[in-house]
């Protein structure tokens, strides 16, 4: 039950885009049509779901204050948490590079449709952001971390596909010249964010 609540919450209430503005750069750049948005969204879900549990374990057993106590008594008061940024980003970058190589070798058709987005994901704030939030929230176990990763990935996916669909239609409407492109997109995202606020305080 807790898992369901966390899942729904991370999709709608703590939506990566609308509540925290994470992954905004690629969100705006790659949302011109639904097909590419779909590809990037799926890639983000996949990378999030794989890196977050890894980072959770690293945080739990290496980085947290006192995390190294399983090595022996003398390590009990070691605090490596200042290293967490560099470790998290290294895991994410290495993992995306690995995924890229595997996909290129075994699934060439998927690679050609996703190819350019995979390296981009290493610098997607949503991925690192999720890891940092995970560290802050102190989840109880790997299960919770995994559910959180899937939920926030799915929330990001939903947001980008919806915006892409709106922008596809908006291409035909008569927008003031100076507002065309970037301006109207920001305002659209703002309005979508307001719509998402109805989920605030939802309890399951």
């Amino acid at each position, binding site marked *: 039950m807790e898992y369901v609540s966390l899942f729904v919450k991370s999709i709608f209430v703590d939506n990566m885009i609308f509540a*925290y503005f994470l992954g*905004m750069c690629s969100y705006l750049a790659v949302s011109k049509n639904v097909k590419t948005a779909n590809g990037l969204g799926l890639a983000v879900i996949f990378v999030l779901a794989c890196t977050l549990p890894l980072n959770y374990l690293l945080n739990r057993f290496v980085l947290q204050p006192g995390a190294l106590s399983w090595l022996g008594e003398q390590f009990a008061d070691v605090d490596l948490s200042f290293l967490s*940024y560099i470790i998290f980003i290294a895991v994410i970058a290495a993992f995306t590079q690995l995924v890229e190589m595997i996909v290129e070798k075994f699934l060439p058709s998927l690679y050609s449709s996703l190819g350019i987005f995979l390296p981009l994901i290493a610098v997607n704030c949503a*991925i690192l952001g999720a890891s940092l*939030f995970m560290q802050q929230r102190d989840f109880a176990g790997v299960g919770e971390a995994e559910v959180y990763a899937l939920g926030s990935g799915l929330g990001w996916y939903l947001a980008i596909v919806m915006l892409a669909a709106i922008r596809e239609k908006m291409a035909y409407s008569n927008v003031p010249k*100076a507002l065309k492109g970037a*301006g109207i997109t*920001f305002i659209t995202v703002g309005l979508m964010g307001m719509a998402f606020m109805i989920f605030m305080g939802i309890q399951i």
Partner: protein
Amino acid sequence: MAQKLKETILNPILKGNPITVLLLGICSSLAVTVQLKGALVMALSVTAVTGLSSFVVSLLRNTIPNRVRIIVQLVVVAMMVILVDQILKAGEGTYAIDKQLSVYIGLIITNCIVMGRIEAFALGQKPIPSLLDGLANGFGYGLILVIVAFFRELLGSGTLFGLRVLPEGYIANNLAILPPFALILLGCIIWVQRSFDKDLQEK
């Protein structure tokens, strides 16, 4: 040479502003604009990180193998961010702000401006121009951040830097504190800038 240097410094502030024109670095920027103080600290941190990491990557540019350059750049940037974070944590007045900015300081690592400037400028230029380019871009970013924060704090709580500006009877506009307002405000800033500068308009 002097002309080129001047352009390097002035371009990112208006004509090539990283936020309103290139649409980079929006990720971590909007969430910190509820209070002017936080926005200012964030702007300074990003400026420092962009400048320093451009400088370091430019020093290393002939030794980094092309295939693994993203990881090398990320490590350099992450190191700078850790430095900034530790400095903020150590300062007496800045510790509270560091707590308030929470994960967003860490997210400077994936701020697209930092990576964008490294990829587009520092990899092919000498260290000193790279440093200036990074600092100027950080400044352009900070300018927008401060403008957004100004309106959000003024309308959202009637204060500036925590000091009351609007009269006591002012009823705070709660929408201004919520995330969507930042996006709409940014859309309007882009609108204003593009109606003055016709070259930036999209076809």
